[in-house]
């Protein structure tokens, strides 16, 4: 690597004998590669001192003091961090003070180095070659490979066999990944805990009385006895006036007294449909809707939770309801469709 030093305007010529801040041995002069020179360290046995690699520069005592001051500040802040950490009890330790201490320590150290870089170090501007292509080595390698195969007569066959072995070995190596879980199991996506007769319970576990379900509000419900975190278990229950219902064909009777139950899991990407809007004055205000807070898919409960706004491609599955002799709400069957975000088989056949 050749070097031809060309000084930046900041680097000054050093007087003979002054070491500047560079660590070269001896040598005065304009930074040219030349031997000789007076003073310097090393040498002394009569051998010529080597030429300077890094050009000399004038000292800057002011900058040195600044660097020292900054380093002192950095140390102060670092000590501060230790003191603050030790001083406060865990519940009271002020996060802001800790952050300022360690951030300040690092920051002042950074500033010190920056001052060093600009004022106390010679910033050279050197030249070098960009690496070029190596056509000779390229052809030599190609030749190497080619000649190494000179004893082989069935080149293509052996190569093919090698590649095939590598492929199959790789497959074999990857196969244990399948133990991560079932390879092609969609049963969990079909599963639902709802059967005819299963009771609805509120978030505290109490069965829901139909008479306590009011209009103009919404309820979260679960399948009694099922895991609450099972996304097929959770429902949103609302009540509309029966005259407002326009349910799809075949769902007559799914909403006794206008009480409707839909899966609370959005059919778009799986968030909980946690918003409900209802008009105080239906003459001018928007009709009732279940809304998902993630991408604002909006479902109309009066028409079987069909999508009226937003990106969801599928209505919320509806759960048919019935009221048992004691007045509690029970499922009258399973959902109208699979629960949750869409996938290949989400619309396939009746759910289990």
């Amino acid at each position, binding site marked *: 690597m050749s070097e031809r030093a060309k000084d930046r305007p900041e680097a000054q010529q050093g007087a003979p004998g002054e070491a500047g801040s560079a660590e070269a041995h001896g040598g005065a002069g304009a930074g040219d590669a030349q031997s000789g020179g007076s003073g310097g360290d090393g040498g002394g046995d009569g051998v010529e001192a080597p030429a300077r690699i890094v050009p000399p520069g004038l000292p800057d005592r002011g900058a040195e003091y600044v660097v020292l001051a900054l380093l002192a500040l950095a140390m102060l802040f670092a000590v501060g961090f230790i003191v603050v950490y030790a001083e406060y009890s865990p519940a009271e330790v002020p996060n802001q003070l800790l952050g300022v201490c360690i951030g300040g320590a690092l920051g002042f150290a950074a500033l010190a180095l920056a001052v060093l870089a600009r004022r106390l170090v010679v910033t050279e501007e050197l030249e070098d070659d960009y690496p070029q292509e190596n056509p000779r080595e390229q052809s030599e390698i190609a030749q190497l490979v080619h000649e190494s195969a000179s004893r082989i007569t069935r080149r293509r066959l052996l190569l093919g066999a090698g590649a095939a072995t590598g492929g199959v070995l790789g497959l074999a190596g990857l196969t244990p990944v399948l133990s991560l879980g079932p390879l092609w199991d969609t049963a969990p996506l079909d599963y639902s805990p709802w059967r005819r007769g299963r009771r609805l319970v509120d978030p505290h576990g109490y069965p829901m009385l139909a008479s306590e379900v009011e209009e103009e509000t919404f309820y979260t419900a679960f399948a009694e006895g099922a895991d609450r975190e099972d996304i097929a278990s959770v429902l949103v229950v609302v009540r509309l006036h029966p005259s407002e219902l326009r349910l799809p064909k075949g769902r007559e009777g799914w909403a006794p007294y206008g009480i409707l139950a839909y899966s609370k899991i959005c059919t778009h990407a799986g968030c*909980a449909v946690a918003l409900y809007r*209802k008009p105080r004055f239906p*003459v001018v*205000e928007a009709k009732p809707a279940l809304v998902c807070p993630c991408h604002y898919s909006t479902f109309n409960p009066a028409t079987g939770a069909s999508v009226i706004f937003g990106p969801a491609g599928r209505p919320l599955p509806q759960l048919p309801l019935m009221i048992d002799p004691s007045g509690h709400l029970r499922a009258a069957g399973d959902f109208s469709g699979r629960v949750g975000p869409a996938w290949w088989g989400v619309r396939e056949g009746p759910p289990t």
Partner: protein
Amino acid sequence: MSRLARTIATRLRGAAGARARWGALSAAALLLAACEGVALAQPRGGVLTPPSQPAKPTVQLGHELFEANCASCHGGLGQGISHPRPGAGDISGAAPSLHGVGAEAADFYLRTGFMPLSNIHAEPSNRRVPFTNKQVEAITDFVASLGAGPAIPHPKPRAGALNSGFELFTEDCAGCHQSLARGGFVTGARVPPLQGVDATEIAEAVRIGPYLMPRFSTKRISDAQLNSIIRYVLSTNRPDNRGGWSIGNLGPIPEGLVAWLAAIALAVLCLGLGRRLRA
């Protein structure tokens, strides 16, 4: 950058720039017209008050204020108008009946400023409260006299528990109001933030279900539960922000803005460390 400015300046100068100047002028004129149009589309504000008002609020005063400011939509006796018909000026009046809504509803809507509404299709806003407290009391008394209805509630948030309040709020309210009651959006309406809202107002809103908000009766949310919820909402005025500057308690959006500001600040630092093209 100065070269950029010079280029644009050169383009606008001279004979060749005449077309560009006209273009800029007409664009400015269009912009001004658009602004005027938007301004004109804003609903009008202001209320009418009788020339002389008694010292204490009375049902009589309330009736007069109601006649002047509410009757065009709610009907002279608060019976409601369900088929909008054009009234005085360009006000098209329609509103629900106020019989049986009680002092609770009147107090809520008037003290917050959600009512009166100058345009029945506009979203109610709590930005301005046009009535004085005395006037609000008077109208509330009048509306309460229109039929037996719920009184102004007196919640006791100190009797509530912060932890159950947080849990209940997350279950029933956060979907619209956001976990820290910073407000949000539901299709068709803006959901207001709840900072600076007092306990009575919260209780009223929960029990009334104003505008598009669901209505939660005592069967749905008991008084004890409501106390807890209100206690939690009041605590959102001063959340536990021990991590530092909370940047609005809104989550990743302001956080991302700050991250980019920090990255830009570091890039500016690089400007100090490295060279520029035209140093």
